[in-house]
């Protein structure tokens, strides 16, 4: 198993965490300004696309998907998962300090547990190395592809 990530790879994991949570918060804030959408007023969804918060939220969620896929290309799914879960913590902190919502004791406990979970996984290896085929090992030994 490979144990180390580069600074750039840690930054991509940070992007995974921040873009999802901040993107969701922006969408929520924007849709709050647009108003309630129901089956009889689906046109409001198109109107929502003119709201700056909604546009910013969509851009951030596209960024999330790109960084998430990049992370999955060099790390295990079970390594990246807690990073996405850390987004819940960011949303809770945003709702407390930006939207001024109440942060109850149980939510604080939830934040603590998720932070612990991220700590467990971040201290471990990022990827399971599967056994390579003979041809692949020969190529690596010969130095081709470096």
């Amino acid at each position: 198993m490979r144990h180390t990530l580069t600074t750039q790879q840690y930054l991509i994991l940070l992007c995974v965490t921040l873009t999802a949570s901040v993107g969701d918060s922006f969408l929520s804030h924007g849709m709050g300004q647009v108003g309630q959408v129901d089956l009889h007023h689906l046109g409001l969804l198109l109107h929502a696309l003119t709201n700056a918060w909604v546009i910013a939220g969509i851009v951030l969620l596209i960024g999330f998907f790109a960084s998430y896929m990049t992370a999955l290309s060099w790390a295990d799914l079970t390594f990246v998962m807690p990073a996405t879960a850390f987004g819940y913590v960011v949303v809770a902190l945003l709702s407390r300090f930006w939207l001024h919502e109440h942060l109850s004791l149980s939510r604080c406990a939830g934040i603590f547990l998720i932070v612990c979970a991220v700590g467990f996984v971040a201290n471990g290896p990022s990827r399971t190395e599967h056994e390579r085929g003979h041809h692949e090992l020969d190529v690596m030994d010969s130095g081709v592809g470096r």
Partner: protein
Amino acid sequence: MVGRLAVSPAASVSAGWICIAGVAALAISGECLIASAMRGLGDLDLIRGRSGLAGAIRAVLTSPMFLVGAFCMGFNFFAMLYTLSVVDLSLAAPATASLTYVGNAVAAKLFLKENVDRRRWLAVLFVCAGVYLLSK
């Protein structure tokens, strides 16, 4: 509360949990397929360095496994919308998130052959408990 269907309470509770399980199953399938596709492609940063951003996007979009996974994730989105019409958000969100985390760990061990050691299992359980507490 899972009582929005015009059927008996027991049947509506079952329907709610079936919806939640379906949403989680779609998320697990989608994430595992996308993870497998990305692992197959290799480091996207290297591909981007070699073929540019367009080359990296092309490599991702021409992967059949990625496309099936993305379809599952898209279907998951609409399944979640339907679930929210049957089950309250306060139950649906933490239940689907927790089931998805546990299911992903099992699927990653079985299908992606990841080394899900004790540390990672503990992290999954902590995340599930944390999500439950955050949703209260």
